[in-house]
């Protein structure tokens, strides 16, 4: 369990917090945010690598705020793995054993089990400089878990990996977490990683937490316009309420929901349906004109101009071709009111 209370860190040019965060025992928690939002700083505060200006950090019900890193029982795996280049794979994995009474059979048994379950047996005598990205991650993971830490911190462990290794290491994290039941706090800027691994996520922006909740909740119901943008809502439009009906500015999209506090309407691009304007279909939605089409291979991103507002949509490229949609073409936009999410700030 990790509990962060009112954590503040002041650095020249950046200020973190105050941040409150609780990662439950055995939970896989993801801290999400763009570069420079303070994610790694929170992680390094938990490890004990930065001086905390204010607040308290509890690890497994123990106040570790004033403790040096070696007495916190926190394991960390960095994006670049940070393997000791002068040591072999085996010596890297065994590095921490001597500090945890691990030189006895217990520690060695744990290492042997980790080596087997991570498929590292054939690499033990290799130099770490000759390993592939995926192998390095597995060694770094084994090294961190060899000392049986109370919690495991992962600092963007998937960011530097090739797509093929990425999926492999993601599966590995999932199965290791299931098997060991260890509390994991992972930092990432990729929502896909969080979506596939985390039970709960927190979105960090400019040193402050914007929203905490399950990945699904944050994805579907972002609390702020920043979170909406971060999870790929793409259409975050100013809105106002008139006689109990929410009017999305310019569009006159009347929705029978909302109250006076809602100032934005957010729509995921995949929830915007586009139909070609033809004579036989008649009026089927909001009329608009395709301003641009960006072909992404499997998907295509469309920007449709309507009533002075640009609405972004995503559709399968095959569907785009089937419907014969082209840049400059007249179309109808269909949006289900249930897919419109309202945001206060």
């Amino acid at each position, binding site marked *: 369990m990790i509990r962060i209370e009112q954590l503040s860190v002041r650095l020249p040019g950046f200020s973190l917090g105050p941040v409150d965060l609780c990662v439950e025992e055995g939970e896989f928690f993801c801290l999400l945010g763009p570069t420079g939002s303070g994610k790694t700083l929170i992680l*390094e505060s938990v*490890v*004990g*690598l930065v001086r905390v200006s204010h607040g308290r950090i509890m690890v497994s019900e123990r106040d570790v705020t004033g403790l*040096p*890193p*070696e007495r*916190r029982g*926190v*394991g*960390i795996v*960095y994006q*670049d793995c*940070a393997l*000791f*280049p*002068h040591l072999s794979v085996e010596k890297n994995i065994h*590095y*921490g054993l*001597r*500090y*945890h009474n691990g030189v006895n059979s217990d520690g060695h048994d744990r290492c042997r089990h980790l080596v087997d379950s991570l498929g590292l047996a054939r690499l033990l005598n290799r130099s770490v400089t000759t390993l592939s990205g995926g192998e390095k991650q597995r060694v770094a993971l084994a*090294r*961190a878990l060899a*000392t049986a*830490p109370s919690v495991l911190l992962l600092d963007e462990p998937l960011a530097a990996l090739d797509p093929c290794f990425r999926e492999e290491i993601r599966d590995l994290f999932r199965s290791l977490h299931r098997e060991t039941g260890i509390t994991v706090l992972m930092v990432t800027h990729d929502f896909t990683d969080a979506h596939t691994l985390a039970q709960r996520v927190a979105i960090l922006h400019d040193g402050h937490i914007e929203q905490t909740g399950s990945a699904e909740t944050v994805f579907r119901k972002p609390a702020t316009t920043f979170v909406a943008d971060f999870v790929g809502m793409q259409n975050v439009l100013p809105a106002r309420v008139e006689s109990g009906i929410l009017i999305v500015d310019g569009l006159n999209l009347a929705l029978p929901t909302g109250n006076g506090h809602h100032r934005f309407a957010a729509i995921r691009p995949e929830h915007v349906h586009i139909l070609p304007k033809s004579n036989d279909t008649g009026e089927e939605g909001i009329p608009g004109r395709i301003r641009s089409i960006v*072909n992404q291979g499997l998907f295509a991103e469309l920007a449709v101009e309507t009533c002075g507002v640009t609405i972004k949509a995503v559709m399968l490229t095959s569907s*785009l*071709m089937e419907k*014969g949609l*082209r840049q400059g073409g007249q179309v109808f936009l269909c949006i289900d009111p249930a897919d419109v999410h309202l945001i206060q700030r």
Partner: protein
Amino acid sequence: MPCPESSASGWRSVSNTAPSAVLSDSRPRRQRGRDPFLWLAVASSAVIVAFILVPLVEMMTQPTLVSLKETLMDRDVVRSIRLSIVTSSSAALIALVFGTPLAYLLARRQFPGKKILESVIDLPIMIPHPVVGIALLSIAGRNHPIGRVMQSVGIEVMGTVTGLIAVLTFVGLPFYINTVKAGFEEISPRLEHVSRSLGASAGGTFFRVTLPLAWRHMVVGAIMCTARAVSEFGAVVIVAYHPMTAPVMIYERFTAYGLKYSQPVAVWLILVCLVLFLLLRIFSLKPKAAS
């Protein structure tokens, strides 16, 4: 309809870019031979290399083998070269013991006045060398409290090996500290962070992670410090004319007997420096070969 169009334009763009890419690769290669700037650079480099090598080669080839052998038989010469090497190595050892923690602090920590401290460390490079000798003597004399303390415990600086080592350490320190600092900076702090998280203390981390990765820079730094100290004359001649180090002996022979008598001693000193330089190259090249 959009499909054939886009694929056709795709084909067109590929077929257009391919030949131009080939041209852009081959043209500079052909032009390189005719580039006047390149020839200007080569010519000026040749002048510089000749400027360094010609006087040295000339001096190395001037003395006969007989005179070189005779010089090597001269006890005073052997003693002075040995003294130069011993005092310079001692200076490097002192720099290693006391300079390593400072280099580590400079590489790893941010603190107020860091830039000023770095400038202070570079001062011995900039100060005229006789001034270094005078400065050291001024604190070692009876008029200074430090000098009085030193004399009370029997440490003499003027005209002693201690004075020589002190002055050589002074001039050699920046070379050691800057080299080792660069070495520490090359090591990712994350390696140390991971080591700490695995249970190692700050000291344990230094000896198990940092030192094994930085030792090559420390050796290179020590060699540079030694090489700098061996060649020191200006500061040495102020602090201790006697016992005579090799550069002082060369100077004395030059002023007393002329060029012919000073050259053989200089040749032997250059050979010693060449060995140091060779060691430096061996130690500094290895990491590149490994990477």
